[in-house]
């Protein structure tokens, strides 16, 4: 039995759901996330020998993130038409219309859907720390390792992300005509 493959399957693959969920929230779409997960798993496997097994999850998520950015750059280079700037905070605001269409109003009745859309619309920097902290329950230190930033940055970004989401939420829910709740 191949020992490396066996160790990889017991130590790394249990985090495949977390890796995929993270990829989905980074990529804002399913097709790209599939490719990112595939590439990230292969990269992880190649790097696995050198790994000291202290924090496999954060390590795998960091690889997922790197693969996501590589794929993003490649897509941008290929297409001459510039894609929407992922880091532009206005990007998020632009996706939430000030004057909701009838469809949008109906959607706002659904809290879960609204919340998902608001998180989707957050700037990528905010989105990733929120997912890592609130959904994957990573510590500040682990998040710092995943996004390759100092812990201080993690703290301030997390604070801004939470405040931003709360703000958008209030804006969306209370801004809705004849708010239902």
């Amino acid at each position, binding site marked *: 039995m191949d020992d490396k*493959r066996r160790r990889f*399957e*017991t130590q790394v*693959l249990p985090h495949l759901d977390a890796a995929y969920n993270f990829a989905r929230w980074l990529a804002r779409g399913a097709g790209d996330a599939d490719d990112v997960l595939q590439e990230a798993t292969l990269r992880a*496997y190649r790097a696995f020998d050198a790994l000291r097994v202290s924090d496999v999850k954060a390590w795998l998520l960091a690889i997922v993130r790197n693969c996501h950015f590589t794929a993003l750059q490649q897509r941008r280079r290929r297409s001459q038409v510039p894609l929407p700037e992922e880091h532009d905070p206005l990007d998020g605001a632009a996706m939430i219309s000030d004057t909701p269409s009838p469809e949008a109003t109906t959607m706002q009745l659904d*809290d879960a859907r609204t*919340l998902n859309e608001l998180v989707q619309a957050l700037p990528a920097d905010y989105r990733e720390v929120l997912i890592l902290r609130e959904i994957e329950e990573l510590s*500040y230190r682990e998040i710092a390792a995943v996004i390759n930033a100092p812990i201080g940055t993690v703290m301030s970004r997390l604070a801004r992300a939470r405040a931003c989401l709360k703000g958008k939420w209030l804006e969306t829910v209370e801004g809705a005509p004849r708010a239902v709740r």
Partner: protein
Amino acid sequence: MLCAESLRVQAHFDGEVDAVAALEIERHIERCAECRALQQQLEQTRVALRRELDYHRVPATLEARVRRALPGPPRWQWAAGRSFWTGALSGAGLATLAAALAVFLWLPMRAAPLVDDLMSSHLRALMSAHPVDVVSSDRHTVKPWFAGRTDVSPAVADFAAQGYTLVGGRAEYLAHQRAAVLVYQHGAHLIDVFAWAADGAWPWRSNERMREGYRLLSWRQGDIEYCAVSDAGPEELQVLAQLIQRIP
């Protein structure tokens, strides 16, 4: 959110401060209305996100693709959920086999409540003062004890010589029947080996999965389904499983 303590309030909320700092921050929150509001907002956001945000689990087909692409021979056991079938069928690439795979992939979900039952039984036993109902390393004591108390009569043996000491046995209600539990001590680990009459709900010959840091290794012998549950390592459980399988 202008209070200078807001980041520390957040850190406290995220469980990132030590006990001394936590006390300081809690005192501050009592005095500062702004930070009280912040704490409430953090709590609300967290609850909403954890309850409502979509969690995208790997689709079975994608996981199969990911595993197929890995170099090296696939592990033949069922590792962490789904690898046995995907591994066994890797490279087959036939539409019919893919369809068969799809049919089998829902089985782990069906078996999940059983995993829950096994886990909670094991944890309850660990927490209680009496992980065993009958204390004995003698199979001539344990095996008769099961008679009348459980619906199956599993093979019983002590493996103290190999490092697995039979501590005793326990009866548990599991898979809608009275299951037998053999309790082994291995170093610092307590290993529960559950045995119940096979009903086809868990059709794999060998099967290993992790749940909350505990490892479950299951196999079938004749008409009896076995599952070893412990925080011991994979090899340690494998060895015990092989020992039990070799009981005449």
